[in-house]
């Protein structure tokens, strides 16, 4: 398992690390991708383990931001990797990090859509929001973060999705528009709407 250890020395740290990776990323992420590609050719099981252990947190967290329930996020992240496994012979040209990130976002959005059709989205979201309230943190900074997450989760649905994709998933308005089948204009409007609403609900932190 030397390969795995090597890969784990550059763990995915969630999307906050994404921006900095874009700058110095060429040197650190490209060899990782090349390494995964060559593992894919040599031994697909080892490849799968390396891919999973490197990117599961990233996939899981991207889903969690859209669906703030860790058990559901883990289930959906598992499904993302099952799909990857089923398509393992079609991954020759893939840049894994971006591919998995897109797959995670699509998986989460699909899940939200399916739930909406069943009318289940609110039941699913509210326990997690309550969780955040009941496990009252002692540290002030953590409390602030939780309140921000609550405020984001309480945005109207499309508005919330758009804001999360832009703010945390580092997606351009154009990409978001494509994913959600909206116009870029709508995405831009919803972004401003989101910021105005958040401005009100978070005013205690913005004085």
């Amino acid at each position: 398992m030397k390969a795995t250890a090597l890969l784990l020395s550059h763990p995915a740290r969630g999307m906050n690390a994404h921006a900095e990776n874009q700058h110095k990323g060429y040197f650190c992420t490209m060899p990782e991708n090349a390494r995964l590609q060559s593992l894919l050719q040599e031994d697909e099981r080892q490849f799968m383990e390396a891919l999973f252990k490197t990117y599961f947190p990233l996939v899981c967290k991207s889903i969690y931001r859209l669906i703030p329930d860790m058990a559901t996020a883990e289930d959906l992240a598992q499904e993302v990797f099952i799909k990857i496994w089923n398509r393992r012979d079609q991954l020759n040209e893939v840049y894994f990090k971006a591919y998995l990130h897109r797959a995670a976002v699509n998986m989460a959005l699909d899940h939200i859509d399916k739930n909406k059709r069943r009318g289940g989205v609110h039941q699913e979201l509210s326990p997690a929001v309550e969780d955040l309230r009941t496990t009252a943190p002692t540290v002030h900074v953590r409390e602030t973060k939780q309140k921000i997450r609550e405020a984001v989760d309480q945005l109207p649905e499309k508005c919330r999705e758009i804001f999360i994709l832009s703010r945390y998933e580092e997606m351009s308005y154009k990409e978001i528009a494509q994913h959600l089948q909206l116009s870029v204009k709508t995405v831009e409007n919803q972004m401003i709407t989101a910021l105005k609403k958040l401005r009100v609900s978070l005013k205690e932190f913005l004085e």
Partner: protein
Amino acid sequence: MLSNDHIDTLIAREIEGEISAEEMAQLQSWLEADPANQAYYEALKDTWDLTADAYAGMPEPDVERNWQRFSGNVAAPEPLRVVTRRNSWWRMAAAAVVIVAAAGLVFTLVQRGKETVLVADADKKTFTLPDGSRVYLNRNSQVSYNAGFGDDNRTVKLKGEAFFDVAADAANPFIVAAGASQTKVLGTSFVIKAYEHKPVQLDVVTGKVAFSGKKGEEGALVLTAGNSAILQQDKEPQQVKNGDPNFMAWKENRLYFHNMPLYKTLTAVENYFNVRFVVSDSSLLTLNYTGTFSDPSLAEVLDVISKAAGVTISEEEKDVYRISR
């Protein structure tokens, strides 16, 4: 005069970082026109900044536990198979040695002009070598030999998978080079499989062979009927157990499953028919299946397996089938 709506669009683009120089200039002059404009802009911008690391302290998934769950389902390991020596139908097959070989190494090709290459692409083929030995080639496989074959040597090189029925010649041993491995045949007939990027694997059905890697005969493993070995790249041969009753299915035109988990059953079907299966519910893969097929068609196999295992198998695209409940 710029509309509020247009200003909002400019601010949104400025936040995204995809604003043109012209738009930036418009925004700048609007900001400078009135302190209230500046305040409006900053309120939105501050809100954007405030939300930056809201998820920095979010719960971490347990990667190891998730990997166990994942690998326990989908990537069910099946690298080396368990051999059951009694009641194995294939032991009744003709005296045979099976070598499963696959190599990340490129063959050292001798001058093309003096080399004969026998190839099977889409279909299995059978050839007779100059010494009278017979070669059964599986799909996408080839054997090659040099001009002196049959006179001063009996060495062939293999890529892919083949069954050899070797003519007796005690003075001149039959040797198969596959990847980093060399197999010296001390018995009479054998099969070799040599696909790239996988460990070389040898299964002896009857007879006796010497199986060696880089070190040559010094590190050779002598194997007799019913035994198996693998050769991983840059390592020495290692004796293993092999219980796959279908390792010669392509040659015998026969598939045999006895209480076999579906993922193994389907792997054998994939190899036999050159198709792929995808599954959405990985729990299906642990169902056991028992059955035998003689020279079957794909439709027949899929029909029988789906009924027996209680699953639906539908063609998703050419040569790709989806298993579902």
